[in-house]
């Protein structure tokens, strides 16, 4: 049997209990809501872009330990990144979390940021939980596109 602590590593439990950047940005330049109809989880991601750079990023919402920790860690790694770097991180994270087609390794220092997200990729052993880990990233993508719609995982 797979050890559950592979899924619930300490860093995930910590960010699940004490999410970072768990706040609303009053006048975000971009924001979007993510919704997982399967479990009712909701997350709203807020962004302040300065030019092409993410000056501030935060989230609010309710969800399980995995989705809360994923959103929290996402906001931590994204601060100061360009939108292109954010997309590259999502592509890499998505591939590792879903166990999908590998994408080319990221250049330093993005690779280091990816290492911070690595604990979340334990969800690939639990197909029902993959969407918990990727929900906030899908919301980020929608926010960057500026569609303003709620993205659904189903």
């Amino acid at each position: 049997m797979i050890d559950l602590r592979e899924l619930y590593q300490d860093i995930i439990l910590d960010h699940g209990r004490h999410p970072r950047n768990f706040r609303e940005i009053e006048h975000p330049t971009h924001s979007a809501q993510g919704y997982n109809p399967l479990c009712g989880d909701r997350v709203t991601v807020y962004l302040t872009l300065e030019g092409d750079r993410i000056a501030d990023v935060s989230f609010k919402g309710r969800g399980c330990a995995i989705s809360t920790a994923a959103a929290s860690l996402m906001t931590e790694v994204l601060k100061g990144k360009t939108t292109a770097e954010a997309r590259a991180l999502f592509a890499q994270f998505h591939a590792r979390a879903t166990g999908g087609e590998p994408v080319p390794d990221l250049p330093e220092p993005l690779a280091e940021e990816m290492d911070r997200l690595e604990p979340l990729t334990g969800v690939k052993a639990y197909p029902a939980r993959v969407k918990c880990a990727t929900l906030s990233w899908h919301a980020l993508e929608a926010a960057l596109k500026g569609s303003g719609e709620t993205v659904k995982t189903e």
Partner: protein
Amino acid sequence: MRPASLRSVYPGPGGFDPKEVKREFPIFTNNPDLIFLDSAASAQKPRAVIDGTADYYRTDYANVHRGVYRLSARSTELYEEARDKVRRFLNATDRREIVFVRNTTEAINLVAQSWGSAFLHEGDEVLISELEHHSNIVPWQLLRDRVGIRLVVAPIDATGGLDLAAFEAYLSPRTRLVALTHIANATGTLVPVERVVALAHRQGAKVLIDGSQAAPRLPIDVQALGCDFYAFTGHKVYGPTGIGVLYGRFELLSAMPPYQGGGEMILRVTFDKTEYQEPPHRFEAGTPDIAGAIGLGLALDFIEGLGRENILEHEEMLTGYGVDRLSHIPGLRLLGAGQRRLGILSFDIDGVHPHDVSQVLDQHCVAVRAGDHCAQPLMDRFGLPGTTRASLGVYNDESDIDRLVAALEAVREMFAR
């Protein structure tokens, strides 16, 4: 076909031994570690249903109501025999009051589309409650959008039961139908349907009861209840998926237009017009789920073999044990506490999301349901994204509850702040 052999391991008076019963369910032989507490989502199947259905395909299968040949006649006889078993199970007066459908959802949609479209008009009211499953909400919203009825929702009280005083106040001469659950799937709360039927009939409203969770747990007598429609599904009464039942009083069914058109439901077809069959065949267009109906009949035999009163006693005893054990877990809040409940324990653990709870439980081989239980309005009412729900069946005993409680300790340990 070989008769479904129900061995006499189950004593009549004095109940049955769930450990003996469990041996009748091959899923537990093939998954010896499984602690199955999700029967409210779907119950496991006894050998009698699995083997009996396979035997039917092996020895008696042909289409029904068509062939002149003997095999088809035998198949038809078995299919219609299953209808008789359902009639007895519900204590309906007339076998023509039993319509085979796919599941409870289809039964409710049938009433909404056929009876609702024919007899309800703009401004008429359908009264439901906050306890309902989506399948007893959405069909009425569709009818509302088509016909212009008003959908009225009776609230629950502070303890999570139907607020009878409010329910009575919401009833009016405009109420044409009351559609309520018998046992709420998300909380296990029992609804006093006898009282509901009496109040509704006094206002001239018809009553539909969603018996999805009650049929596997309670003796059901539609004559004593006095309801106009009663719906339940096969897979929750230890029968196959894909088969369900709509009971409707004959007088109502015979006034209702067809639900779907096709073969089986007609008397005479020309390109100008079609004459329809009498109920129940009017509502069973196309080749039905013959094996499903026969499997359902076998499941009902199995239930009768255990004894409906015995099952009720078993579920009450085990529910009580579960409530007691869970109430000693710090930070655990049971939904519908104080209400009379049966077979379902739905709870919230402070600070831990139900999906995380059920993930850890699964690691301990305890299968429960996590989420909104297709009752999002009720979850909104409780201010929760969802709950963890443990539900009982005839194969569960105290040791399953003990395993649940032990696994919940592990949950608290992992997520302790």
